[in-house]
C-alpha cells in the first residue's frame, strides 16, 4: 500500500494549482461568469496546454494516460479555485464515455480534439422524472434506415449549453426503468431536431435543458452495443462521482482554511473570536469532517476502476454519502462562523457552500447513495458461515 503521490503527480498538482492561483482569483471568476459561455475560453486553452484536457486519455489520442488519481488531483484544485469550466462535462463524462464506449474510429476522431481544447462535450442523460435513477430513461431511439431517430427531453445537462456534441442516452427497448435496452448516441449539439435552453445553476456553473424531436444520428454514432449501455453509464457516473468528491474536498479544504483564518482575525469582545472554545471545537469538527471526506475521495479514486461493478458501486456510494454529509456540515458551519459576512455574495465562502450543496445534488445525494449502499449489503460483509 502506498498513499503518497508520485513525483509526476506532485508536479501535476503544483502546476494546476499555480495556474489557477495566477489566473483564477475570485475577481477573475466573477469576470469569467459574465463571459458569454459563463466561463473562460482562454483559461480552457491553458488547461489544454498543460495537458489537463487530455488527462485520462491514451497518448496515441493526444492524452497523457493519467488515471483516477490524476483526475482527483486536478478536480481538487478546481474545487479550491471554484473553477467554472466544463472539465467534468467534457473530459470526465463525455471523454469517459468515448474512451470506454466508442470504437477506435470515433475515439481517434474526437478524443484528440478534446485534448486540444477544441471539442466540448456534454452528457444528456437525466430526465424530468428520473431523479437519481440512472436507468430511468424515457427518451426513445427508433431505428430508421441506417441510423436512429431520437425523441425525448433531457434535463440538467451539465454544460450542455456550450457543448459542441451531446452524448444522449435513449431507450431502444424495454420499460422506462429497465437497465436493459439503453443506447448512447453522439450527436452534434446544433443538429436538426435538437434544441437547447441554457441557464445558470446556483453554484455559478451552467446547464441546459435539451429537447430531441426527430433528431437523426448515423449508425456509427452509437457507443458500444445497442441496448447494452447501462454498465457504461453506471461506470462513467461513478467516475464523475469520484471526480466530484475530489472537487468537494478542494472546496471544503478552502472553506475550512478561510474559516480558521477568519477566527484568527475577526475580533469581538476585544479578542479574536477564535479564542472562544466553542468556536475552536466547531473548527475542529469541521476539520474532522473534511479529513473524513478527503479519505473517502481517495478511496473513491482508488476504487473507481475496480473491475467488480458491485464492489465499485458500494465504494463510490459510500464516498458520495460522506462527501454529502461533510460538505453540508463544513459549508453550514463556515457560514455560521463568519456571521453576517458568510451570507454575502461578495465573499467567497458562500460560493463554496453553494458548490458543495450542488455537488450533493449531482449523481445522487447522500440519502440516495446511503439507500443504495444499504441495498447492496453495506461495506462490511457478515461473517461467513463455515
Amino acid at each position, binding site marked *: 500500500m502506498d498513499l503518497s503521490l508520485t513525483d509526476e503527480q506532485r508536479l501535476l498538482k503544483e502546476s494546476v494549482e499555480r495556474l489557477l492561483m495566477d489566473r483564477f482569483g475570485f475577481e477573475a471568476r466573477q469576470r469569467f461568469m459574465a463571459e458569454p459561455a459563463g466561463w473562460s475560453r482562454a483559461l480552457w486553452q491553458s488547461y489544454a496546454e498543460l495537458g489537463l484536457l487530455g488527462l485520462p486519455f491514451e497518448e496515441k489520442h493526444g492524452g497523457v494516460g493519467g488515471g483516477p488519481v490524476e483526475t482527483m488531483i486536478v478536480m481538487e484544485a478546481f474545487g479550491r479555485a471554484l473553477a467554472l469550466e466544463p472539465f467534468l462535462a467534457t473530459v470526465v463524462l463525455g471523454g469517459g464515455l468515448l474512451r470506454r464506449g466508442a470504437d477506435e474510429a470515433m475515439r481517434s476522431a474526437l478524443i484528440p480534439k478534446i485534448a486540444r481544447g477544441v471539442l466540448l462535450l456534454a452528457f444528456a442523460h437525466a430526465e424530468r422524472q428520473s431523479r437519481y435513477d440512472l436507468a430511468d430513461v424515457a427518451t426513445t431511439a427508433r431505428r430508421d434506415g441506417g441510423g436512429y431517430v431520437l425523441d425525448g427531453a433531457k*434535463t*440538467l445537462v451539465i454544460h450542455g449549453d456550450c457543448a459542441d456534441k451531446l452524448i444522449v442516452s435513449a431507450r431502444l427497448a424495454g420499460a422506462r426503468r429497465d437497465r436493459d435496452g439503453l443506447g448512447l448516441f453522439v450527436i452534434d449539439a446544433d443538429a436538426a431536431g435538437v434544441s437547447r435552453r441554457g*441557464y445558470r445553476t446556483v453554484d455559478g456553473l451552467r446547464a441546459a435543458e435539451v429537447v430531441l424531436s426527430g433528431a437523426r444520428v448515423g449508425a456509427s454514432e452509437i457507443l458500444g452495443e445497442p441496448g447494452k449501455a447501462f454498465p457504461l453509464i453506471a461506470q462513467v457516473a461513478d467516475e464523475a462521482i469520484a471526480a466530484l468528491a475530489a472537487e468537494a474536498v478542494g472546496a471544503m479544504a478552502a472553506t475550512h482554511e478561510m474559516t480558521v483564518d477568519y477566527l484568527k482575525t475577526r475580533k469581538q469582545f476585544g479578542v479574536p473570536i477564535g479564542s472562544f472554545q466553542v468556536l475552536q471545537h466547531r473548527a475542529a469538527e469541521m476539520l474532522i469532517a473534511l479529513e473524513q471526506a478527503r479519505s473517502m475521495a481517495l478511496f473513491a479514486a482508488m476504487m473507481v476502476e475496480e473491475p467488480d461493478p458491485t464492489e465499485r458501486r458500494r465504494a463510490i456510494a459510500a464516498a458520495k454519502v460522506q462527501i454529502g454529509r461533510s460538505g453540508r456540515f463544513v459549508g453550514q458551519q463556515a457560514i455560521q462562523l463568519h456571521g453576517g459576512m458568510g451570507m454575502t455574495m461578495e465573499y467567497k465562502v458562500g460560493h463554496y457552500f453553494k458548490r458543495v450543496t450542488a455537488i450533493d445534488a449531482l449523481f445522487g445525494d447522500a440519502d440516495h447513495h446511503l439507500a443504495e449502499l444499504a441495498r447492496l449489503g453495506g461495506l462490511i460483509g457478515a461473517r461467513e458461515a463455515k
Partner: protein
Amino acid sequence: MDLRFTPDEIAFRDEVRAFMRDALPAPIRRKMVEARRLEKDDIVTWQRILNARGWAVPHWPVAWGGTGWSPVKQYIFHEELQQAPAPDPLPFGVNMVGPVIIAFGSEAQKRRHLPRIANLDDWWCQGFSEPGAGSDLASLKTTARRDGDSYVVNGQKTWTTTAQYADWIFCLVRADPAAKKQQGISFLLIDMKTPGITVRPIQTIDGGREVNEVFFDDVRVPVENRVGEENRGWDYAKFLLGNERTGIARIGTSKARIRRLKEIAALERAGDKPLIEDERFRTKIAAVEVELKALEMTQLRVVAAARERNEPDPASSILKIKGSEIQQAVSELLLEAIGPYALPEETHDDADRWNEPPIGPEWAGPLAPHYFNWRKVSIYGGSNEIQKNIIAKAILGL
C-alpha cells in the same frame, strides 16, 4: 393541567382562522406557501388589512391599538397567522421600536410614531449592527455629537434589513465618547430622508437584496428624536432584543413549511413511488415534527408562565435556538425533496426571462435560495452561539 384550549379560546382560534382564510390576499398567500420573496407592497398591504381589523399590534397597550388579549390568545393569533401562512407584521416597527417607544418614549414620540407603525405608514429598519460590532454590539462606534438642539451623527451601520424601503431607522449611537462601553449608548430615531444618509445594498448568497450598509455623514437629528435618556440606550436595546427573541421560534411558520414539504414530497417521485412514501424520507420529516411539537410545548409553557411573570423569559433563548434549528432542518428537507432541481438558478429577477417557464417543477425554484437564505436565522437576532452563552450565564449561572 389541561392542554386543550377553553371553549372561548377555541372560538377565538376559529375566528382568527376564518379571518386569515378570507382576508389574506391570494397572491401573498401563494408567495408565502411557496417560500418566495415578498415585495414591500405585499407586506404593507397585509399589515394594513390587519390594522383595519384592529389586529396589527395585538401585544401593544389598548390605548395604542393593542387588543388586550391574554398571552394565550396572543399566542393563538400568532400561530394562526403564521400557519395561514401570512406575513408577520413588520417586526422592526411592531415588535422592536414600537414597544421601546411605548415603554420609554415621550408622549410626542408615541403620538407621532405609534399609529404610523401600526398601519405601516412608516417603514422602520434596525440600525444596531456595525462592521466592528456584531455579537459584541456594545462595541459600536457610530457617534452622535451634541450641537444645540441636534445630534450630529457619523458612522456606519450594516446588515440593515430593508433599509432600502425604510422611512425611519432606529439606531444605537454613542453620544458620550468618554463613557465606557455599555454606558455611553443612546437610542435615536432617525428620518431616512435626512441629508447625509447613504444606503448601499448587500447581495446575499441566495441572490436577494434584503440587507444594506447605511452610512451617516454629518446627519443632523433633533434631540427630541432621542428615546428616553441619554446614555440609557443599552437598557432599551436589551429590552428590545428580549422581545425580538420571543417571536423568533416561528412555530407556525415551520408547521406551514412542513405542510408544504409534504405536498411537494407527494408530487415528487423517487423511483416508482411518490417521495412521501419513501420510508427514509418520511422518517426524516417525522423526526423534525417531533422536535417541533416539543418546541411548541415549550413555547406554550413560556406563554403560560408569562401570564404570571409579565416580562421576557430567559428561556426565550431556547426558543430561538430550537426554532432556528428546526426552520433550517425543514429548509434542508425541502431542498432534498426536489433532488437535482436544487440546481437551476431562479431567473425571476432577470428582466428578459421572467416569463420563461421554470426549469423543472414549478415548486422547485425558490427552495435552494430559501435554504441558502435561511442560514441567517441562526446568525441574526443574537447568534445561536450567543444564545447558548446567555443560557449558560443567565439560566445556569456558569
